[in-house]
């Protein structure tokens, strides 16, 4: 087995196709592990991991923590809301203080894009980016591709449309990098105000008609409208957004094929996706969550194997 070409997972753009395949093959093994009666392996019992969350998270934090515990790592948790960050401590000071307690790996979510890259240059630990502002969310993109591979056999050659708030979405950017790297065709679809200029330079096409996009694709990844990142109005009303870019059963039934529906969560039921679609067999939303643990176990395991003793 080869090893990852990187020492940190800062973004999909730093990975190559071999890395992604290695992560998926390893995740296959961990998926089998987490379906056993005892879902734990002792591999990382001499590794300590700090989860630093400078921004709110439920799913990702729980998923990482579970992945770490299933690998038998020691885990410490930190959230900015209840820490000395509020007293004015810098990021490097915070992390170095934590590392002086002999921590080997840092999982970090931060509101500033590039926070992970910055940290990797200044501290001596393996860093996994769990979301940095509107930049990247690499493990989400990996688990999305892993879930597509599980449902459709492979990612290469498949047509995937990412629908919604592309502008503020780190999930969209990481997915675009991951999917194009694996040879999938990617379109983005959403209100023009939420699609960044020059996004075609990343090798994707823009489609503003949702019905056309759905008719074209094999998989639709529905993103959440991120109201918390919007300082101005990007569309007239939620109702209008839903009418133009929301997926419902009627719309899916009007297509001449059954497409796969994904959502990174949390879902705004009735906004970007209706409940009957979210809970249908076409949706693999809960598979994504389960695969998230296996994929994160694989990433942590592979990076930990590169940490020198």
């Amino acid at each position, binding site marked *: *087995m080869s*090893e990852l070409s990187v020492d940190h997972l800062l973004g999909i753009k730093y990975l190559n196709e071999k890395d992604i395949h290695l992560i998926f093959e390893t995740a296959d093994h961990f998926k089998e*592990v987490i379906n056993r009666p005892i879902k734990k392996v002792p*591999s990382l019992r001499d590794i300590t991991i700090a989860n630093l969350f400078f921004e709110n998270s439920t799913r990702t934090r729980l998923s990482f923590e579970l992945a770490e515990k299933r690998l038998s790592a020691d885990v410490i948790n930190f959230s900015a809301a209840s820490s000395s960050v509020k007293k004015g401590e810098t990021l490097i000071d915070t992390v170095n203080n934590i590392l002086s307690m002999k921590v080997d790996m840092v999982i970090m979510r931060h509101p500033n894009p590039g926070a992970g890259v910055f940290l990797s240059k200044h501290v001596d630990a393996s860093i996994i980016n769990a979301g940095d502002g509107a930049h990247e969310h690499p493990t989400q993109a990996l688990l999305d591709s892993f879930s597509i591979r599980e449902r459709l056999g492979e990612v290469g050659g498949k047509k995937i449309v990412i629908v919604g708030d592309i502008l503020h979405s780190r999930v969209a950017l990481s997915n675009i990098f991951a999917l194009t790297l694996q040879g999938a065709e990617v379109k983005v679809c959403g209100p023009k105000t939420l699609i960044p200029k020059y996004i075609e330079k990343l090798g994707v096409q823009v489609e503003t008609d949702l019905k056309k996009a759905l008719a074209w694709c094999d998989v639709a990844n529905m993103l959440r409208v991120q109201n918390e990142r919007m300082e101005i109005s990007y569309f007239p009303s939620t109702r209008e957004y839903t009418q133009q870019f929301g997926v419902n059963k009627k719309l899916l039934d009007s297509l001449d094929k059954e497409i796969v529906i994904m959502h990174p969560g949390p879902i705004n039921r009735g906004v970007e996706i209706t409940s009957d679609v979210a809970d249908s067999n076409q949706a693999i939303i809960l598979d994504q969550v389960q695969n998230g643990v296996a994929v994160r176990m694989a990433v942590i395991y592979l990076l930990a194997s590169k940490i020198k003793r």
Partner: protein
Amino acid sequence: MSQKLLLSAKEIDIILHRLACQLIENHTHFKDTVLIGVQPRGTFLADRIKQILEKEYQVTDIKLGYLDITFYRDDFRRGEKPLEANKTHIDFVVEDKRVVFIDDVLYTGRSIRAALTAVQSFGRPQEIELLTLIDRRFSRHLPIQPNYRGRQVDAINQEKVKVHWTENEGEDAVYLVSG
């Protein structure tokens, strides 16, 4: 590099039949017994033993699984090469079962130590036995011995014992490789 033939195809065939008979002696109908091939190399031997038990001794309903021990090994981050994982395939519970681990070569005993830990993820077996084709004497790091052994071999640490299987290497043979 030189290699010496330790066991020919004919000798292996005789040994496999003997091992199968020894298993029958202790497990009769295999009602509460499960065979587990230790990945990666023990699976070939486990398949062969099962085949012989079924075809030549008419034992039916033998439960056979494969166990990967990668994530249970004690040399994570200690070797030059990353550890390579293999598939675990155990579609039965081992709770209260009589488990027989099957591996081709018993050397330091560390793989079997890892397997003993790994199998606990699938329940608490009534007992665990070990069947191995080659037992490298005098090289154990742990107090682990086989219950069923094909051939005992004295080899120094610089030498390697390689087991070839028709389905993988095109021939049945065991070699002692040195240099």
